[in-house]
């Protein structure tokens, strides 16, 4: 079981309920805008505490309301690409990329800086401040930062939005490789049907 979760969560007036256990390494989470997809990712990453339920990823129990388990975010080791990129504005691109890498145990790293930089085509941006990046450049750096933190699983919130077709294709290939060769479980939020069809072994509908 790669993702095994059941959780309920209130935001404002909306009650979000979701339970699924996914056998597929890459699971897509889909649903209309505002239905609660980002909220679910936040719950899995440990940034929001569900009212009740249980979250396990790749056999690791991250949260269990009944058992009183609630791992702190830094111990969950999620590679979270936020819908809003959240680059650190006071660090250059290079420092943003290595932020998580330097905090991760060397043994856990499964991808190197050079490879990430090449795949994402951000070599010329390393000395830049985030404020000077274009929308797509920002997104790519955010993806790189998450991959380099040696995560045990990935949470991708619309990672391909605002990337051009070519760049999107390269990235999708990278995601496929991560899924297949590295066996890293991935939860992908996407609105693009073709993307979901191509990548996802299982599709979870939130409504």
């Amino acid at each position, binding site marked *: 079981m790669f993702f095994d979760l059941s959780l309920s969560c209130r935001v404002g007036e909306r009650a979000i309920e979701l339970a699924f256990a996914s056998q597929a390494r890459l699971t897509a989470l889909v649903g209309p805008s505002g239905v609660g997809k980002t909220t679910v990712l936040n719950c899995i*990453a*440990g*940034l929001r505490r569900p009212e009740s339920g249980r979250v396990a990823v790749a056999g690791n129990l991250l949260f269990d309301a009944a058992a009183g388990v609630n791992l*702190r*975010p*830094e111990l*969950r*080791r*999620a590679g*979270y690409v*936020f819908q*809003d*990129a*959240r*680059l*650190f*504005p*006071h*660090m250059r691109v290079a420092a943003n990329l290595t*932020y*998580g890498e330097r*905090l*991760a145990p060397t043994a856990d790293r499964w991808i190197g800086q050079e490879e990430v930089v090449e795949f994402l085509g951000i070599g010329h941006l390393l000395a830049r*401040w*985030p*404020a*000077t990046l274009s*929308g797509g450049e*920002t997104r790519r750096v955010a993806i790189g*930062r*998450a991959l380099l*933190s040696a995560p045990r699983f990935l949470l991708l919130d619309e990672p391909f939005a605002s990337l051009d077709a070519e760049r999107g294709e390269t990235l999708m290939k990278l995601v496929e490789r991560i899924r297949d060769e590295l066996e890293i479980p991935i939860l992908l939020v996407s609105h693009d049907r073709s993307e979901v069809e191509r990548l996802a072994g299982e599709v979870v509908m939130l409504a």
Partner: protein
Amino acid sequence: MSEWLTPAEWGVVTLSLKVSLVAVALTLPVSYALAWLLARRRFPGRILLDAVVHLPLVVPPVVTGWILLVLFGRNGPIGAWLESQFGLVLVFRWSGAALAAAVMALPLMVRAMRLSIEAVDRRLVDAARTLGASPWRAFLSITLPLSAPGIAAGAMLGFARSLGEFGATITFASNIAGQTRTLPLAIYSGLQLPGAEVQVARLSLISVVLSLAALVISELLVRRSAGSRAHVL
């Protein structure tokens, strides 16, 4: 510079700088911690703490000096303890002047820092946490540097306030040449002497030049990190 100043003036200037710099250095971590508490935590008594921090601003400096005297004098509870434990005497010493300046600078520094901490986007701290940073590390690498404008502004305000501090200093640390006679006390002494307008004007000008220098330095420091200041998606 030493050519333009008399040896006595030179002594006053170096003492003032020592007192102000030590005061700011002492107050910086304390006021940042207070600012952080007030900005980020909700706890019972928070407004009371806020009020206590503002006290040195509201109460006339002479009263603050008097309270310091009661607490940190050799017969005061803290003063007696400091003396018996560490042999540390504050009254009549430059260290006492630094304490008085630090207390007076505190509220200004806390407010500036608090404003900057409140302006830090917490989602960035969240992002740091998912990347493996402990709360403490996320604080050191995200909140602290992003609140640098407030630290710089606070340090500048605190330094200026320390340079100008008079009432609490003369009450608590007294007005002793070479020990506690900082620029404002020297100016006060000058004001006691009729016909000393030139001397008073010289000393005031020195204060102004010192703070101008501090201002230029702080502006340069802030500008050096300006690339990082812009807003990001």
